[in-house]
């Protein structure tokens, strides 16, 4: 699905990541940890071709990112749900319209899709905020809306950058439950997070691999997690 082969990424003369070889297979569940500035967000951006590796090769759905033109990248992104740390939205649209945006882009704006939207908004606890504008949302509500937008088209892989950074424990558990359900449906999930409690909670429910970025390399985390 998403495969890294000896990937390196350099920026401004410095090497941020190097020697990364791994694969996100269907149904896999990964956490990505590491100190701030270690390269977690850069790693995720390499996963959805927002960045291209400066060494090695990233393959998305069996195609090298170097072989993808802009339409090819767009097609790959329709199969990857991304939750950004800064949760960007179209501020002139309602929360419901923002969450439904991937459906609109994919041309799936039918009645069934609208029903999924209502269910999803209920699941992330945003039904009462459906007609609000994104600037009116709290940080936690924005993250929930971003997660709902990322999963609404049932993508093959879900990449989330600190998805529970601004939500309380109860909501983080609900979001985790949603991600676990999607994972059980065969979706690959990767969550970049500092939240060790979330990782421990997930590991009790699913066989998750925990990766740590250390010294520019991605390694399997030790037993402390």
């Amino acid at each position, binding site marked *: 699905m998403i495969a890294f082969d000896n990937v390196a990424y350099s920026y401004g003369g410095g090497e941020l990541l190097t020697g990364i070889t791994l694969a996100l297979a269907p149904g896999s569940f990964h956490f990505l940890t590491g100190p701030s500035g270690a390269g977690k967000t850069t790693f995720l951006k390499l996963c959805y071709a*927002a960045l291209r590796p400066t060494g090695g090769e990233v393959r998305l759905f069996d195609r090298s990112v170097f072989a993808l033109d*802009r*339409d090819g990248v*767009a*097609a*790959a*992104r*329709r*199969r990857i749900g*991304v939750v*950004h740390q800064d949760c*960007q*939205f*179209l*501020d*002139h*649209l309602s929360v419901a*319209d923002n969450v439904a*945006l*991937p459906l*609109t*882009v*994919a041309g799936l*704006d039918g009645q069934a899709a609208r029903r999924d939207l209502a269910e999803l908004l209920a699941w992330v606890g945003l039904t009462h905020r459906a007609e609000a504008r994104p600037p009116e949302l709290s940080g936690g509500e924005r993250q929930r809306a971003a997660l709902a*937008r990322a999963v609404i088209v049932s993508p093959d892989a879900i990449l989330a950058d600190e998805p529970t950074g601004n939500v309380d424990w109860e909501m983080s558990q609900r979001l985790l439950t949603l991600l676990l359900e999607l994972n059980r449906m065969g979706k690959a999930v990767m969550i970049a997070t500092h939240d060790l409690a979330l990782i421990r909670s997930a590991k009790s429910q699913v066989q998750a691999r925990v990766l740590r970025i250390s010294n520019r390399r991605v390694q399997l985390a030790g037993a402390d997690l």
Partner: protein
Amino acid sequence: MKGLARQLAALARGDAAADRVVPPAGFTVRLTLFAAAAMAFLAVFALALSLAAGRLADRWGEELARGATLRIQAAPEEMDRQVAAALRVLETTPGVSGARALDDAEQRALLEPWLGPDIPVDRLPIPRLVTFSETGDGYDAAGLRLRLSAEVPGAVLDDHARWRAPLVAAAGGLRLFGWMALLLIFGAMAAMVTLAANAALAANAQVIAVLRLIGATDAYIAGAFVRRFTARALAGAAAGTGAGVLAVALLPGTGDAAGVLTGLGFAGWHWLVPLLVPPLAAATALLATRAAARRVLRDLA
């Protein structure tokens, strides 16, 4: 051309859901509307100038082709004999047809603008006019003058071509000038719409980033902007065209005697020609916005 037709068809169909991704407000709305309206207004005047100049050139050209005049100056008792001689000469001249002498009523009508009505034409020592037309390759003007000097000493051949040809050329030039002005107007509109589209795309970099994140193709993003700007240009141009046509209709005219300036306007089916301005403005905006969107999206990639 096929692509443009396809885009125009897509524009007509519309995509309400996709169009909403572009924020509705912003100064580019007013800029595009105003530019399209102003340019359409000017385009209507350029069209009126071109078409009026064309009509004038055609009319002068037709009159030029229609013929020439003989002016016969003679003593009253000689006049009829010289006119008859002149007609005989013209009838036997190759390339000449339809020779006839103007009657008193026609001569009076010609003099009326200068001397007023009720002119006693029969009592004034004014020359008689004989008109005739060219046929085929035309006649030999130099040879005709020689024959007339021998057989009708009082006749002077007035070859209209000498003074009408430069006027016809000038009218043709004016028509060309009008079409060039029209091209420049649409070029200027394309430039303004491009500037507005560039500004809108730059101001909506975050919108573009979000759309790309969720897998929107460049064609989808560009299409939303292109439809928005094309619709604005169409609306602005329709308003400008309406105002322009109204202004042209209110211009004072002088009927059949109209020249380029006094006759600036439309005649007959030419009143329908301004209807082409709004769709042409929309097509110009479509091409300009599409090119701008492609460039900006490539740069943002």
